[in-house]
């Protein structure tokens, strides 16, 4: 009998343990490549390191064979690499440390038909990208293919008490299982954030070695532009579109999460929050009161389905607003705005 394999991902300092069927192909696309948990590597014994080398060597050989085999090689290569890593990691990584377990199953038709009434529908025109249903131990989500909304992509059950997901997915055109395919992972991260002091937000974040700055707003206000200006001045861009914010040991941090492109985990302390907008001149308007908090709150990502989630969001935003200055920032997108910002921060 084949046993399941385990893959550990470290996202925003959360450990996600994926339990995947060892037979068949399981893939995490390039966006996850850098997020395999590094924790285990540091604690590997020499024997395990040797095994890892052997596994890598086997994988290399397999890669060469696959290259010869042609077009399907790319998918299988990432699969074999993922699973080989997970095997070696699982030896030294106790599942007890996982913040979340994700059981990945093949076939939507194998999902138990145990969900109840519909709680929420994320409509996109007539069709829904996902629908949330009541379920005995939590919620059940039906996720459709974002490029073909009439096609069911996942049936996922979230056991809130056990902090465990069970995701049933049909294999893709290449015969591979993609249990975390968009929008499944953002949904998982959202519900994870509701169990911790965390928020997902549309924002860019940069760290210049001493200060972490976040620029939040809707599309077009200059989030990416600001990130680009800071990057050109030598700062590290945590991400230029979506961040997870977490409060750890009394301090708020910003993290990137896997996107569609390859990246590595990044984090930085959060010191300043800006709400940029285009303006004929640079303008610095430090906010106070509820209006500023609500402007910031409007950019948080919400996938809630009950009032409790809204209240939880409010709790987090109020705490952030209490500890971190939020400033409306009129921006002329040139490097001068960086000096302008620093001068006002230190004033």
């Amino acid at each position, binding site marked *: 009998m084949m046993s399941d394999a385990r893959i550990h991902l470290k996202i925003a300092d959360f450990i996600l343990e994926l339990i995947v069927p060892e037979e068949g192909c399981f893939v995490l696309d390039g966006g996850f490549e850098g997020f395999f948990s590094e924790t285990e590597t540091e604690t590997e014994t020499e024997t395990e390191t040797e095994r890892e080398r052997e596994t890598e060597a086997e994988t290399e050989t397999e890669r060469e064979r696959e290259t010869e085999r042609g077009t399907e090689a790319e998918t299988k290569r990432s699969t074999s690499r993922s699973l080989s890593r997970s095997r070696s990691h699982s030896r030294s990584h106790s599942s007890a440390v996982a913040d979340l377990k994700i059981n990945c199953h093949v076939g939507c038709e194998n999902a138990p038909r145990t969900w109840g009434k519909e*709680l*929420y*529908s994320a409509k996109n025109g007539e069709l829904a990208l996902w629908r949330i249903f009541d379920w005995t131990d939590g919620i059940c989500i039906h996720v459709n293919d974002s490029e073909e909304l009439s096609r069911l992509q996942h049936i996922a059950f979230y056991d809130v008490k056990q902090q465990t997901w069970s995701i049933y997915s049909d294999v893709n055109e290449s015969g591979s299982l993609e249990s975390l395919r968009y929008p499944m992972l953002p949904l998982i991260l959202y519900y994870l954030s509701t169990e911790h002091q965390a928020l997902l937000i549309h924002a860019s974040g940069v760290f210049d070695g001493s200060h972490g700055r976040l620029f939040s707003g809707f599309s077009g206000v200059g989030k990416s532009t600001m990130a680009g200006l800071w990057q050109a001045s030598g700062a590290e861009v945590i991400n230029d579109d979506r961040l997870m914010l977490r409060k750890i040991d009394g301090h708020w941090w910003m993290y990137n999460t896997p996107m569609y492109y390859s990246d590595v985990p990044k984090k930085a302390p959060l010191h300043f929050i800006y709400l940029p907008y285009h303006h004929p001149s640079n303008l610095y308007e430090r906010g106070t009161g*509820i209006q500023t908090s*609500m402007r910031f*709150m*409007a950019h*948080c990502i*919400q996938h*809630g*389905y*009950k*009032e409790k989630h*809204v*209240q939880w*969001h*409010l709790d987090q935003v*109020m705490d952030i607003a209490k500890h971190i200055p939020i400033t409306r920032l009129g921006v002329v997108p040139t490097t001068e705005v960086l000096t302008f910002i620093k001068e006002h921060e230190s004033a």
Partner: protein
Amino acid sequence: MKQLIASIYEKKESYVCRNTGEELLLIPLKDNVADFNQYLTLNEVGAFIWDNIQLGDDEATLVAKICAEFEADETEVLTDLQAFLEKLRSFLEIQ
């Protein structure tokens, strides 16, 4: 006005309330998602009215409740109450 008060009462479930210490924040829920671009802040008296509106209340009932809670002139309370209820009518999109 009694009909308006009843309509406000019926709308209460569609709003998330949050006490921020000095103010009460009302945030509309649309399909269970909060719209943080549309919100209303109520002062102490406004929050008291929002919290104490009951189905079947009319102006006189509310004025009596307010006067019992706050030391205020009844005529002045009635004028302020009518203005407040009209503001709620607009915010809650009551026809």
